[in-house]
């Protein structure tokens, strides 16, 4: 960590069902309330009980954009958790393990580092304090607070907020559990020169939030009224949250029978005049593809959130990657425009969601918000999530009055900008066919015998492109203009790269992050890259999909490609090491001999 700002990483590992993610989130929010910043990452298998589930969280006094790999405090609720994570322990790290369940011998610790090993006999502590076994997580958190000198009142306030609805007794019991864990660790677990997490009252309006939750909030903010989806990790929490809020938000949320139905429902609601959206992961998106083409042909606006996980097929259901970019950018039969937005964090996800709705309605095209497990499930503590105003733009949508003044309404009227006015069912004078067949200006089916109609309609749909390019979020530049090497990335690599930049020599690297990857504004990107030095591509996939997409659009070459496709996110340490030109271990590098040319 730069300039002595404390960075601390806690990892809790155990079996599925032991509640480490819940405990972790309590800790994250307590930190956030105490003026600290956090970023978390959770690993879990696709099963409900047993297996190994880990939760790790990096905490800092300044905003932190990714979870670090190096663990300062490891809590092991199972032996497997220890075996899995011991290699990540830092020097002077502490390890807690549930000594009532299993044993860790000092000889099992990594030899090269000084490590403080403590048994935290949860069952005994719970029994002695007269608590219920269900409070084990709180005992653990109390012990964590003790070694970190962390203000327990912050944990207490979280307990009150979470369990308040269940009554005072439940609150009391959980607070008692925290105290029991705290007392035990204070008396039994002393570490010299260990991290102190200094907290202070937080004045900012902070939230601890994932990109999925931010998308769900953005969906409400955008005035979306209909949401249909079929569950699929890691997209499901968008659906869960919206379903949970539906009564209050006024949105109708429908779990459909399959993804084909989900997208067609969204199209139906949109055709009728409501803002509509769906979400899925790559496998479900594969089923939606025909609907994507239908949206394009009928010019019915739709927003689709696709949260990626590693494929092909079922792949690694609960892990992450950026492997669907080529797919979503190219899939669908026929030539048509689709917009792909790629937020890099929760805040971008929140603001890009209403933006996606505006784009969909202004240009009457499908818009995909491409996320992935890392940001979909990684909680980030964000100050001022909602500091920018949400703007609603429904594009060329007619009111009854406007429609009344039109003599002969044509749904697919040829216009300069390619966008025609929409009339909605129920409006007199606007009757038309939204047609999946190629059609004339009125919407009536046409055949190849009238090629001029076909050509004009295709050209009309593509005439939207220049305005779309102007209207997309611009790639964002981070770091010094003079840096010799420019890092290129999109979506979730933003966090780890920004973290890595904090530790790399100042001025050596800068970073261009893309939050819109399709269509590419070649002129704009060309301008940004002009004068830049070598380019390094950073992506979470095997083949450098975004690199290929850029190459299709402009003359660029990458000096190096740093590609990781293990299902695990880039860790800042890995990137720091990689970019310091030391030998890489965990990540795959593809070196290109060609010189960088930017024209």
């Amino acid at each position: 960590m730069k300039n002595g700002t404390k960075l601390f990483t806690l990892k809790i590992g155990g079996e599925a069902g032991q509640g480490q993610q819940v405990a972790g989130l309590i800790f994250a929010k307590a930190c956030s309330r105490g003026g600290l910043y956090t970023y978390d990452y959770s690993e879990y298998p696709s099963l409900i009980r047993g297996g190994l589930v880990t939760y790790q969280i990096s905490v800092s006094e300044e905003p932190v954009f990714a979870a670090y790999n190096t663990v300062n405090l490891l809590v092991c609720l199972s032996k497997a958790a220890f075996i899995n994570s011991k290699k990540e322990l830092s020097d002077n790290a502490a390890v807690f393990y549930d000594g009532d369940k299993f044993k860790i011998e000092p000889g099992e610790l990594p030899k090269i580092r000084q490590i403080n090993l403590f048994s935290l006999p949860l069952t005994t502590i719970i029994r002695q304090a007269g608590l219920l076994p269900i409070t084990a997580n709180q005992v653990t958190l109390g012990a964590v607070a003790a070694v970190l000198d962390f203000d327990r009142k912050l944990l207490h306030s979280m307990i009150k907020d979470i369990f308040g609805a269940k009554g005072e007794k439940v609150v009391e019991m959980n607070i008692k559990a925290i105290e029991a864990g705290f007392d035990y660790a204070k008396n039994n677990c002393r570490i010299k020169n260990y991290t102190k997490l200094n907290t202070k009252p937080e004045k900012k309006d902070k939230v601890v939030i994932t990109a999925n939750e931010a998308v769900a909030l953005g969906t409400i903010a955008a005035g979306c009224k209909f949401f249909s989806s079929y569950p699929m990790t890691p997209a499901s929490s968008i659906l869960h949250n919206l379903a949970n809020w539906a009564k209050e938000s006024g949105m109708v949320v429908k779990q459909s029978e399959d993804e084909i139905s989900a997208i067609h429902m969204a199209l139906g609601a949109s055709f009728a005049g409501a803002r509509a959206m769906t979400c899925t992961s790559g496998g479900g998106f594969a089923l939606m593809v025909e609907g994507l083409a239908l949206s394009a042909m009928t010019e019915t606006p739709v927003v689709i959130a696709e949260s990626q996980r590693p494929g092909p097929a079922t792949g690694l259901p609960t892990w992450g990657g950026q492997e669907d970019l080529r797919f979503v950018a190219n899939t669908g039969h026929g030539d048509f425009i689709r917009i792909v937005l790629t937020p890099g964090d929760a805040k971008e996800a929140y603001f890009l969601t209403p933006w996606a709705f505006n784009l969909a309605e202004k240009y009457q095209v499908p818009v995909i918000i491409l996320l992935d497990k890392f940001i979909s499930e990684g909680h980030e503590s964000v100050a001022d999530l909602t500091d920018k105003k949400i703007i609603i733009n429904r594009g060329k949508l007619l009111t009854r009055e406007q429609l009344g003044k039109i003599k002969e309404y044509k749904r697919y009227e040829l216009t300069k900008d390619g966008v025609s006015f929409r009339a909605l069912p129920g409006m007199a004078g606007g009757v038309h066919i939204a047609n999946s067949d190629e059609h004339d200006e009125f919407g009536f089916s046409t055949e190849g015998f009238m090629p001029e109609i076909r050509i004009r309609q295709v050209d009309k749909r593509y005439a939207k492109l220049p305005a779309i390019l102007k209207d997309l979020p611009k790639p964002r530049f981070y770091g010094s203009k003079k840096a010799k090497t420019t890092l290129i990335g999109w979506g979730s690599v933003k966090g780890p790269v920004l973290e890595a930049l904090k530790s790399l020599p100042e001025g050596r690297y800068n970073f261009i992050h893309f939050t819109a990857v399709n269509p590419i504004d070649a002129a704009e990107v060309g301008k940004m890259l002009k004068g830049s030095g070598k380019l390094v591509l950073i992506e979470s996939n095997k083949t450098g999909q975004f690199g290929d997409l850029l190459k299709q659009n402009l003359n660029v070459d990458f000096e190096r490609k740093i590609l990781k496709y293990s299902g695990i996110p880039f860790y800042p340490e890995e990137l720091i090491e990689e970019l310091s030109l030391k030998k890489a271990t965990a990540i795959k590098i593809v070196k290109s001999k060609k010189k960088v040319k930017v024209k």
Partner: protein
Amino acid sequence: MAKAEDFKTNVKPTWCPGCGNFGLWQSYREALAELGLQPHNTAMVFDIGCCGNAANWHKLYAFHSLHGRTIPVAFAIKIANSELTVVADSGDGGGYGEGGNHFLHTCRTNIDITYIVHNNQIYGLTTGQASPTTEIGLQTKTTPQGQLDRPFHPLQVAIAQGATFVARGFTGDPMQLKNIIKEAIKHKGFSLVDILQPCITWNKLNTFTWYKQRVYKLEEQNWDAKDKEKALAKAGEWGDKIPTGIFYQEQAPSYESQLPQLKDKTLVEQGVQAQDISKFLKEFK
């Protein structure tokens, strides 16, 4: 008041002369007019097929969807604007084959839409392949040795899946058909109207005469459409005798009527404004 002819565009139908679809269309238009509906407050979702081509000659708000994908589109149109009369229209191929899953599950929702299926027991538009309702033994382009699969029983499936209005019409009886369609549209819930529609070009077995010789009307049999078990058995009757009419009808709250979100205004009427999210932010603090 709109007349039957007001539901017609200037486009000339491209159906084969003598196709059962002409009669179906006539009965349908009359039903809409007699119900006092207007083209602009009727939304209809069309499949791909001979049936679906009719999107071009129906004057109303039409969504010409993909093959098999009428129901989910119609479902959501009704949710978005529950004041519209919403009809999904498909063939036996699109409705029971390609779109089978939507059919199965939308019966369960009791959404207030009407599902009209042009059942000609063949794929018409794609020139005569077997459909889910093709008779065993029938030789088609894809079953030159005769169809092996047993036919799909749409009415039984619909009843079993919880549809609250299940009927069969025949294009050879336009009066009965019109009345069934009217009842189906009036019914507050999911209505299936399976319509025997002779395809004179590709189905040489199930012809107009073939149907005519077999059909009989339930309403002439003192039929009690409230008895679900009997309806289920009746819906399986197919052979020398083929019943037509309303097999089953049940009054139950429609899907959209149970949504508090639609209580005051339709979703579309509510319009789109930037929504304040502060109350949802609390749980993240």
